[in-house]
């Protein structure tokens, strides 16, 4: 503390009235339409999942900080954001232990051990989702109806989809992925409140559209492109997961390159793969590339 005092009393002596809690509140606000729609559609199941993930995330965070005697700012809300997002990437019919496992894994292993002690930032939600997909493949595909109602899977198998139903969430999928309209409202909230920059999403979406167009040049139609964007967690990934502060590059050029890489890879796995869930593995690859991208995009200083 004595040592710390020298730094905290250093100039400037006035500070902007912003804090981490406010930023996290904006994220929660942006996630609210998505979460509310999930509850509207899957009722009690969705609500229980949400409560489980949020409570598990917050308590894991609190206990970890308590045991390593780190300052306990449980109120800053980042654990709540992680909790909501974790619930949004699992299907409503999944067993409840999925939420408990993913919450503990995301906060304890990914955030605090790999990210804190190991100083290698990965998005807890993405890593946790990837783990669940590998370890519990059956539990993670418990959608309420048959797989044939998953829009992206239908498209990948050559069927056409009803994009209007995808917009209003009248399809099946992971809880946060189904309603494109709710996700877009959330995206608008994120951009308007200024908590995220537009560079990653813009580069991501453009690169993605370009890739699927090039790889599918023979049978292209607008329905296909809109379906690809609106379905299978793409919008959730673009606006809420790829823009995660800790796991995305901070440099401007780096953000654009990161968006392009994610867009290219997502386009490729959508066209050549057979599952909408592949996008989470793409995000994981992006996270791993982040330090490398940052090192290649050190901005030129004003004075040189």
């Amino acid at each position, binding site marked *: 503390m004595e040592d*710390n005092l*020298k*730094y*905290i*009393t*250093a*100039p*400037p*002596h*006035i*500070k*902007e009235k*912003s*804090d*981490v809690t*406010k*930023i996290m509140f904006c994220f929660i606000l942006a996630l609210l339409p998505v979460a509310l729609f999930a509850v509207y559609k899957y009722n009690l199941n969705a609500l229980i999942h949400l409560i489980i993930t949020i409570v598990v995330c917050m308590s894991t965070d609190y206990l970890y900080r308590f045991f390593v005697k780190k*300052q306990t*700012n449980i109120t*800053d809300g*980042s654990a709540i954001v992680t909790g909501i997002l974790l619930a949004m990437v699992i299907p409503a019919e999944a067993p409840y232990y999925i939420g408990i496992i993913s919450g503990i894994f995301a906060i304890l292993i990914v955030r605090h051990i790999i990210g804190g002690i190991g100083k290698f*930032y990965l998005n807890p939600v993405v890593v946790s989702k990837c783990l669940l997909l590998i370890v519990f493949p059956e539990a993670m595909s418990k959608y309420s109806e048959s797989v044939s109602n998953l829009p992206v899977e239908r498209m990948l198998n050559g069927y056409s989809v009803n994009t209007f139903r995808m917009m209003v969430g009248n399809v099946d999928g992971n809880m946060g992925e189904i309603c494109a309209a709710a996700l877009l409202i959330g995206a608008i909230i994120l951009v308007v409140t200024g*908590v995220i*920059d537009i560079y990653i999403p813009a580069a991501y979406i453009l690169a993605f559209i370009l890739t699927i167009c090039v790889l599918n040049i023979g049978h292209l139609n607008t329905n296909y492109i809109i379906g690809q964007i609106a379905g299978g967690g793409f919008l959730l990934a673009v606006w809420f997961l790829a823009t995660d*502060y*800790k796991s995305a590059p*901070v*440099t401007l050029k780096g953000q654009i390159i990161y968006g392009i890489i994610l867009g290219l890879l997502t386009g490729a796995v959508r066209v050549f793969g057979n599952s909408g869930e592949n996008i989470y593995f793409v995000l994981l690859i992006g996270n791993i590339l982040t330090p490398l991208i*940052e090192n290649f995009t*050190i*901005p*030129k*200083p*004003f*004075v*040189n």
Partner: protein
Amino acid sequence: MKLHSYLGGITVKSHKTQSKDCEIKSLVPQADMVYPLLSYGENVVRPCVDIGDKVKIGQKIACAQDDMLGVFSSVSGVVKAIEDRAISNKTQKTIIIENDNNYEEDDFYEVIGLDQMDYDDITEIVGKYGIREYDSSQKPLYEKLKYAKGKSTEYVIINAVECEPYFTSVYRRILEEPELIVNGIKVLRHLFPKAEIVMAIGEDKMDAVIEMEKRLKNEPDTEVAAIENKYPSGDFTYLIYQILGNVYKSDTEAIQNGVISVLADTVCALSTAVLEGIPPMSRVITLSGSESNNPGNYEVLFGTSVDDVIKLSGGVKQEPYMIVNGGVFKGEIIENTDIPVTAGVEGILLLSKKEAPIYEPEECIRCGRCMNVCPDRLVPEKLLKYAVSGKTAGFLKWHGDECSLCGCCSYVCPAHIPLMGYIKDIKSKINKEGEK
């Protein structure tokens, strides 16, 4: 005049209304006067009076070799002590004079007409009078003039921007003593006959801009520029960039390229020294902050203690949460108010806990706000990481050496991390290693 705008920087609540309309008042010191003997490089300033000597106003009490960097008594009285004192974390030799309150004046130097002086004569006067830049650097002006000699100076920039919140002393001087600045500009014109003189004033002080434009209407090649109202517009690098579109890292680099910049207060001191023969013995400071009973602008004799200034101005409402020597962005918190006012004290701020809270830092969330406001286009988040872990190589790889320590990153950080404190620390460590 068309200005270039730079990326980054921040718009801050100016807090200037408290002192903006307060006329400059002179303070009569009560306590003993303390004169620090500030050396510059190899020019060591040594006392030229002894304990017990009687001195008058304007009498030289210390100087370096060849009469350079003179220090002058601002009161009449007796030399009480010559001792080492701790002034803002540094031990400095000081001369202490007991004020006899008679204010007897010494004979000042003879005034020669401006026409009969050449560049070297003026440089000599500036050197002997020990005129320094009126900011915390306190760089002797004669060093600049000496360096600029023989180089074709194209632009002289007078810095009256005052982008730091709270400060209004330069603004008040422009409104109350415009002649002094106009005369200073005449001296500068004599020094640099071919240069274009640009006076830079913050655009939030439009009445000062209009006043100067009116006064300088008949001066050839002299312009007033209204500078964008954000911090750190008044800092050397960004100011020159805004006016000329060129980026210079240091004073010397700018002078080499024909650009010299001086502060408005320094120009006033230049004018009184050259045209009236009076050495610099006082400065105008802003005393402000919500704990001050009478915020305003005060003309303070050099050597008056900060404690005296606070008392004479009317005292404090409550014990201030912090007392800052300088601006809120660059000034240092002072624990001990027993330090003297010198050319380097731009203002004294008595701040309450509400306006200048000290936060416990939280974890960095990598939001990138520090990067967006950085006028040097660096990535403070990375610099912080390397500064905390002490990795000099990584710090330099991310161009940490180009950081101008403006403090914008610390200001915006939502986790309240004192980035500037850490970066300053590692920078001084790098500088020390470089000297070895």
